[in-house]
């Protein structure tokens, strides 16, 4: 690890003075008493515990609910940086929707020779039942999260697109609530852009894609797999904040040709279903027959214009890691513009030359499963033991098409508030994007995830990552 190039710290210059974005915050921070701040950090944890903002960890029955560690030092981005970022995000999200429309219709991108057809038709995330169908308003990905990493003053790269059911937005909102509760004085001196309109915008955005069968004010519901799902808190939180019902499969039945939920007054049709359930479980008649979480027959009604499903089934193909490496081409193909946000360099192990390179340089690279998520099943070369490297070499040789590889990035750091004081840790950023037929709405900020262990590059909460409040501040 000692060979890694020095990382860009977002708060401090090399000489220890604060960068422009952090000038006001740093001044405030240096005036604080550290015992007082330690108390605040404990208060913040207590605040999360009391409000029940918890997260369930898979395969951990002893502690079913956990808190995601929260760090009190915010991530700060200037308005100027944000303007550029949001233009890049908007461009990318437009391209993703155009791409989805295309691959489920004429597949011009394949005809133009810009994307191998195998990547679509042999891909589990490709949902053949979507072919020839256009969702209401032409929107495929109503809610998107774009994972960004930073490597320098102006270098933001897209690490991953989340086009299925991105999670974490409740933490964006609750982190801000917590910070305003803990440090109100900061918000009266520093002008931080507001994030709290997200639930309202989400509701409005979903209402604008009501299906043809909807006659009045659209009825929106959130579909959750249930209380044991790791993101259940978020499902309940968003439903509550939007003023929508939180339903499970067994609350729903098809009544008079509509998908309807059992209320105290009888069955009421749902117009827009924000589902937090994977495609595979959505309709046992079409996908996994053993699924008890979904709604048998919903897909037919969807195609018949009786209900809108958000995000549309089959959007997962757009965040597939094998497709990821084609994103620069995809952006250019559909927007006619150069991508504003760059991808991380990616080797597709399915290609023999790339595979050879990856095998030769395994100890320097990060290798990811094409269909993996949540930081599971990945190899971080520089941190891996000889044994782990050997095991991964065997996996790569056996199923090369299952993997992509990327250079180990010098991810930017932001200090966390540790016992010993400020300590730099690696971070990423997930801004949240809402897509409706007439506009794309990006909440200023997003979710900053931070690897709490020194030197670690894995920020996933399932792997011991924490979060920070993320600020976009007005330029003075």
């Amino acid at each position, binding site marked *: 690890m000692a060979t890694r190039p020095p990382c860009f710290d977002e708060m401090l210059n090399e000489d220890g003075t604060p960068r422009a974005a952090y000038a006001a915050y740093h001044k405030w921070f240096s005036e604080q008493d550290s015992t007082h701040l330690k108390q605040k950090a404990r208060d913040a944890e207590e605040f999360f515990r009391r409000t029940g903002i918890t997260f369930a960890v898979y395969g951990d029955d002893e502690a079913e609910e956990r808190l995601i560690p929260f760090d009190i030092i915010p991530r700060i981005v200037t308005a100027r940086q944000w303007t550029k970022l949001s233009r890049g995000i908007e461009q990318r999200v437009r391209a993703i929707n155009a791409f989805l429309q295309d691959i489920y219709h004429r597949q011009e991108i394949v005809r133009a020779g810009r994307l191998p057809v195998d990547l679509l038709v042999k891909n589990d995330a490709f949902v053949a039942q979507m072919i020839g169908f256009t969702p209401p308003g032409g929107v495929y990905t109503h809610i998107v999260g774009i994972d960004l990493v930073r490597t320098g003053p102006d270098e933001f790269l897209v690490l991953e697109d989340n086009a299925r059911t991105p999670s974490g937005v409740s933490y964006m909102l609750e982190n801000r609530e917590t910070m305003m509760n803990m440090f109100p004085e900061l918000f009266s001196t520093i002008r931080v852009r507001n994030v709290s309109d997200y639930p309202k915008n989400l509701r409005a955005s979903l209402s604008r894609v009501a299906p043809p069968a909807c006659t009045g004010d659209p009825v929106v519901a959130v579909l959750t797999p249930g209380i044991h799902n790791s993101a259940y808190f978020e499902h309940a939180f968003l439903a*509550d904040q939007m003023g929508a019902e939180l339903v499970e499969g067994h609350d729903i039945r098809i009544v008079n040709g509509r998908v309807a939920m059992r*209320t*105290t007054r009888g069955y009421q049709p749902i117009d827009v279903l924000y589902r937090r359930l994977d495609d595979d479980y959505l309709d046992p008649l079409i996908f996994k027959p053993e699924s008890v979480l979904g709604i048998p027959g919903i897909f037919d009604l969807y195609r018949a214009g009786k209900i809108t499903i958000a995000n549309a089934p089959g959007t997962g193909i757009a965040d597939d890691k094998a497709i990821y490496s084609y994103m620069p081409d995809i952006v250019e193909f559909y927007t006619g513009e150069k991508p504003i946000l760059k991808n991380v360099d990616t080797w597709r192990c399915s290609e023999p030359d790339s595979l050879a390179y990856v095998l030769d340089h395994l100890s320097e690279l990060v290798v990811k499963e094409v269909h993996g998520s949540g930081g599971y099943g990945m190899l971080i070369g520089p941190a891996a033991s000889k044994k782990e490297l050997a095991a991964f070499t065997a996996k790569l040789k056996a199923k090369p098409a299952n993997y992509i590889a990327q250079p180990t990035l010098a991810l930017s750091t932001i200090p966390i508030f540790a016992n010993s004081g400020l300590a730099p840790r690696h971070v990423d950023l997930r801004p949240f994007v809402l897509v409706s037929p007439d506009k794309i709405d990006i909440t200023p900020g997003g979710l900053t995830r931070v690897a709490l262990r020194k030197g670690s590059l894995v920020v996933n909460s399932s792997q011991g990552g924490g979060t920070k409040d993320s600020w976009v501040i007005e330029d003075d």
Partner: protein
Amino acid sequence: MLGKTASGIFWMFRYLERAENIARLIETGHRFTLTRNRGRQDEWRSILSALGMDAAYRANHDEYNAAQVVDYLLRDKTNPGNLRNLIDSARQNARTTRTAITRELWEAVNECWICVNDALKRQVREAELPATIDLIERQTSQVRGALENTMLRNDGYNFSRVGNFIERADSMARLLDVKYYVLLPSVSFVGSSLDNIQWETILRSTSAYSAYRWLYPGRASALGIADFLILDRRFPRSLAFCYGKLTDNLRHLAMSYGVQSDSLTEAERIYAGFASMTAASILEDGLHEFLVDFLAQNRRLAAMVEQEYRFNS
């Protein structure tokens, strides 16, 4: 509102009411072990009976010693209806009904769960028992406070109240039934004075002790106590009071939904029945029979509400 949500809120407040009831019974039982020399074992046994837990308790325990019974009621894993589980279930229900309850109510339930869990991690030593019971009672009161102060008076609120008063009526009737022999006419008619300990237990475990003494200074008669606990509409745990509230809340529900409600009609019928009764007529016709009959009606009403508002199907 989803049927499932209505059910969740209804049961959340049944669980909380039941937990409070257990806490109060423990408090009473414990007081007796401190102030009376005789009847200790019997007292714990009748508390278990009033909660319908006596047979289950005996399956795993040989004797009725205070520490064991208290632990059984609070946290013993062999008792699925222990207080800790009730609070856990209430909180679980609050999680699943987040969309229908206020943030304040959710936070109060969550905090109650956190505190009670902390307090009941280990067996509660006798020295800590009063403080622990006190903590439980304060926490559940905060939940009620949050409900009253922040909830819209909508269907969710009414379902919470219906659950609350059905549970309260049930537990009052069961407690009375366990002690009914104390109030038997034969005992008082032959002129023997009421057993002080027994009536004190009943009054204390229903939080009625002080109120009753103010209303009936110096007199503890079977008639007076039966009248107070069953028919007095000023006393918030009496059966008549519970049914007054039940008719109110069921009427609000029926009106806001604009429906003809069978459960309302049934609750009104039961409530009207109290008006035509006197304590003397109840005792004459047989207190036990009255209570068995009442418990069955109360259960039936709960089932009607569940069905009418589509809790499960």
